[in-house]
């Protein structure tokens, strides 16, 4: 496998369309998951990625509560309280599944055996720091779950999020202001208006959706780079 994070492809500006919908973002992430990968999809929006993996992709889904080869969400007649995903949603089992306990499941994750995990985020820094577990609000009940293990465990960490908050604040930032989940752990950021690669030199824009690179760079308060066609 060649490592797609090593040398970014030339920038593509998709200006004939608007920002990606949630499902288009999920499809965009799915396109970057190599055949046969072992993948953990975080709770919430990243779960949608499963719906966009083509038949025969050979992708094996891990759920950190102790299973490989997890199938789609259970339909009415299939619901089994003993078979849930990390979001506690009833799911199904595919042929070739395996069950294991929590220490083994997180050993698998922490030991770097998962090829990719896809996570949501409040903020990602240009250095790849991730903040996705805690808003830092004083009255919030903090809860971390497996977020910190996922952030540092997988071979490649993909973040999937809208690029701006509802209030218009950028979520790709020079430094996270929310409490961190992991330091320097993010490899790619898939958003509605652009896809970023995070590397030693910071954030490189791979493509934009409905916005030219220069406008994007202007809206974000982060140093960006781009690879031009040569």
């Amino acid at each position, binding site marked *: 496998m060649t490592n797609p994070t090593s040398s970014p492809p030339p920038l593509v500006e998709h200006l004939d369309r608007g920002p990606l919908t949630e499902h288009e973002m999920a499809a965009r992430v799915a396109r970057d998951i190599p055949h046969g990968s072992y993948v953990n999809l975080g709770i919430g929006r990243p779960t949608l990625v499963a719906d966009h993996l083509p038949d025969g992709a050979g992708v094996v889904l891990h*759920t*950190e*509560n*102790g*299973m490989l080869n997890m199938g789609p969400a259970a339909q009415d007649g299939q619901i*089994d*309280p*003993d*078979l*849930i*995903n990390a979001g*506690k949603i009833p799911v199904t*089992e595919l042929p070739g599944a395996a*069950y*294991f*306990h*929590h*220490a083994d*499941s*997180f*050993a698998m*994750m*922490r030991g770097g055996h998962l090829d990719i995990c896809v996570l949501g985020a409040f903020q990602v820094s240009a250095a790849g720091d991730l903040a996705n577990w*805690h808003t830092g609000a004083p*009255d*919030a*009940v*903090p*809860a*971390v*779950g*497996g*977020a*910190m*293990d996922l952030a*540092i*465990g997988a071979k490649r960490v993909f973040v999937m999020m809208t690029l701006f908050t509802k209030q218009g604040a950028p979520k790709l930032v020079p430094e996270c202001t929310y*409490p*961190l*989940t*992991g*330091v320097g752990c993010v490899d790619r950021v898939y958003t509605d208006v652009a896809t970023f690669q995070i590397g030693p030199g910071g954030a490189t824009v791979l493509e934009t959706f409905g916005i030219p690179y220069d406008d994007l760079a202007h809206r974000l308060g982060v140093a960006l780079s781009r690879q031009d066609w040569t």
Partner: protein
Amino acid sequence: MNVMTCGDPDEAVAGIEDGSTVLVGGFGTAGMPADLIEALVRQGATGLTVVSNNAGNGDTGLAALLDKGRVRRMVCSFPRQSDSWVFDRLYREGRVELELVPQGTLAERLRAAGAGIGAFYSPTGAGTLLAEGKETREIAGRTHVLEYPIKGDVALISAHRADRMGNLVYRRTARNFGPVMATAATTVVAQVREIVDIGALDPEAVVTPGIYIDRVVQVVPAA
């Protein structure tokens, strides 16, 4: 030592002392030893430290134990859920302490307690709030956090089947924390759906060997 087969959940939790550290299995309701927790509510032990992935759902189980003021301290990874209103209230009122532990670190600290590991270095949480005040060390170019075992006085777990030696098998993702908690407590109590004869479980598929189990009780599964 010899496994005690208990007649009901009340017998199974008898003798749990005030101030005990109780490990409670389950991830959400899967693998949650609901009948044992209800019996613990009746049993009355208080001042407990409860170690469990979550901090109760709705008004039953752990939530009921919390609501009755029996829990001094929760050690868990994900207390906040859509229906964790009991914990949320007590936490905001300052009536329960919380030690928040990343889920994998929680599992590994329990394993360490069961495996005689004095402490271990983990990369999880390095550079975050949850590593504040903890010793760190650079190993192979990466910051690691020193983590210590979590040992229980009692573990309450749920499994699918037990044989009369206490060998356990689980079912699907209900396995979750049961096998590690079973290794990490002085007294381990398992509720199971069925107790089978010795020899009825496949020795290749036993997940928790009976050596870890002290008491077993068969409960009728909820319909």
